[in-house]
């Protein structure tokens, strides 16, 4: 057992902290309240540092930063409340294209994603297929040198500001579902694409995207025809290894501690002197240390070159479920004041806890629901019978 970071990773952590102190502003964070969970200025600054290319393996043309640097980058960004969804997507899409894409995609598109000029979004989920992602029905049919795409995707978050969608399509409906899938990188300005906003219960907006006879040259195909499931596995590998999501709670805990220490209740007491409040806060802080253990563990395994699977599902399951619980617990600590949104001038710390209460439910759904994670742990880790 050795839970220490090598000196160069500690130096990198200090560098990230300094970057955030210099770059990240409250305005950047608050700007996400327009619904777009993306800060172009922050994204550009991250790209300029080379940190988008960083986690992409050097043999694939990336920055070749180790998994330990990646987890530190994610940790510091999340602790500072930086909006980094676009960072995670950029890293994953670049890695997919570098591993499965043709030379055109590698040479023309990847550099623009990694230097921040181009933005991508995910297009896996459909109105009729979420957890059962391999049941995608969006059709891609070959027509001469081109492909014609028809269908629709849900939860193409950031599509309205992105340049590309990495699209999962069905190219053969007559074979088992996993064997008839093909990926494309689709320019979002292609004729025939319509983007409709999907408002959510939280501040962020998502999108539904519709594809009506969208014509694509074959150079936009990613991976083999009907080889889409191999690409999907790469996507999940990077999503669970690199994309973060292990540290959603610390900024909310900071806010709750601040409230507990500064608020005076109507009976004259401070919440921080209430034993039940103190226990609630300590429980959340313990959960964060558990998340830290998971995050460092997966990074440590990746650093050793060991590919992990179920550890990523466990990390995601624990981090998102505990985060959702913390948000609700903290809103309870605040009582009626916990209901005020960022639109209220009286909201505590810009309504941070309230905003997270409404955001947190999606975290146990996107990127693999808690139920899918539990299935994977039960089957892959405990060897219980597969039921799907």
């Amino acid at each position: 057992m050795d839970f220490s970071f090598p000196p160069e990773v500690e130096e990198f952590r200090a560098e990230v902290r300094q970057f955030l102190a210099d770059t990240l502003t409250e305005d950047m964070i608050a700007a996400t309240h327009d619904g777009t969970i993306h800060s172009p200025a922050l994204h550009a600054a991250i790209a300029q540092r080379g940190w988008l290319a960083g986690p992409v393996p050097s043999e694939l043309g990336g920055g070749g930063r180790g998994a330990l640097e990646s987890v530190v980058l994610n940790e510091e960004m999340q602790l500072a409340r930086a909006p980094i969804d676009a960072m995670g997507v950029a890293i994953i899409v670049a890695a997919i294209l570098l591993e499965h894409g043709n030379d055109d995609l590698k040479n023309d598109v990847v550099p623009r994603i990694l230097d921040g000029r181009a933005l991508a979004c995910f297009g896996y989920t459909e109105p009729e297929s979420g957890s059962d992602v391999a049941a995608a029905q969006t059709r891609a049919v070959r027509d001469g040198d081109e492909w014609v795409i028809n269908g629709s995707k849900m939860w193409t978050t950031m599509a309205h500001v992105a340049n590309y969608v990495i699209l999962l399509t069905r190219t053969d409906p007559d074979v088992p579902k996993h064997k008839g899938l093909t990926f494309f990188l689709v320019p979002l300005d292609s004729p025939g694409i319509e983007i409709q906003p999907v408002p959510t219960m939280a501040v962020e907006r998502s999108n539904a995207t519709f594809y009506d006879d969208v014509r694509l040259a074959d150079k936009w195909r990613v991976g083999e025809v009907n080889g889409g499931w191999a690409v999907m596995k790469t996507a999940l590998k990077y999503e669970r290894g690199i994309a973060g999501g292990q540290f959603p709670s610390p900024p909310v805990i900071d806010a709750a501690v601040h409230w507990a220490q500064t608020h005076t209740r109507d009976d004259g007491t401070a919440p921080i002197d209430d034993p039940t409040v103190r226990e609630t806060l300590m429980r959340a802080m313990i959960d964060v240390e558990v998340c830290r253990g998971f995050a460092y563990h997966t990074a440590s395994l990746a650093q050793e070159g060991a590919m992990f699977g179920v550890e990523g599902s466990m990390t995601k399951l624990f981090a998102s479920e505990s985060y959702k619980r913390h948000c609700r617990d903290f809103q309870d600590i605040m009582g009626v004041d916990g209901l005020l949104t960022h639109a209220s001038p009286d909201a505590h710390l810009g309504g941070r806890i309230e905003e997270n209460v409404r955001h947190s439910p999606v975290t146990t759904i996107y990127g693999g629901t808690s139920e899918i994670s539990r299935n994977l742990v039960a089957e892959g880790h405990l060897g219980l019978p597969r039921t799907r």
Partner: protein
Amino acid sequence: MRTRLTDDEAAVRDVFAGFFANESPIEVVRAAVPLGHDAALWRKLVEMGAPGMAVSLDAGGGGATLCDLAVVVEQWGRHLAPVPLVEHSVTARLLEHHRPFDQAQFEAIVAGNDIATLALRNPQGATAHLIPAGAVADIIITHDGTSGEAWRSAPPLTAAPNTADLPLASRSPDETTPLDISDQQWTRALDEWRALMAVAHVGLAERAIELGVDYAKERIQFGVPIGSFQAVQHGFADAATRLEGARLLAHRAVWALETNQADASRLAGMALLFSAEMARFAADRSLQYHGGYGFSAEYDIQLYHRHAASWILQLGEPGREYARLADAEFGPRKAA
């Protein structure tokens, strides 16, 4: 960063996994009821040098790290082995710079010929109330927050009947000797107990989940193994996830103590609370999925369930552990 065991630690694990599997099968645990102690098993550990393994070589111990000891304790917990390994090991390490009564007494403790324990809670006058290994310990170390004492008296070899048949007993001394144990040293010993017991709960829960999963793969209801039902699978998956989280936190706490990290005490307290709740959850799920058999004395899961309920309470109420951590985090509480 290496979150897994080192090769040396894995070798230690393999040795003691084999030892406890051979020498402390569940029949031994059952046979130790109601005292919760098997003198023959302890003797075998003494022959292996286990009781003083994590005492320094200079002091006559085995010179192993706290991490090595934790690896052994994880196997101890997994087998519910009826010997006071954690209390004795922590006490022997505490006494490294103190000599209760005389050098010979210290050497008897390091060798394990005399069993030592510590009163985790302050004694009330001349009685230490229900202390771990109190039924079998020859030497008891107490501390009142400022200074320490070693107590010596013949062990009663009778435990106060309790949930998990632990060797709990209240003790008074026949003879005492003061020990110049600082508050810091005492806190350190308690933190080692916390971190090691966190690891013990990990071993316990790992085996509890195995028992349940094995059962769920075999037990047929409605024509299929009950382990194929998602309601059952998801309970196990939650337990297994919390188990891995607890393992990583407990190991980090042990490593932090071994390497004197600034947050070692905080992590030790956190690890114990998390591991104990995790183990209770795991044992509860596993017993539940055994159905009525889980409630019967015949099936081993009930032993795991009862131990999971009990170990942490030897330290006191978990609520006070949360309060202690909160005091360190936020400063002392102002009473209303």
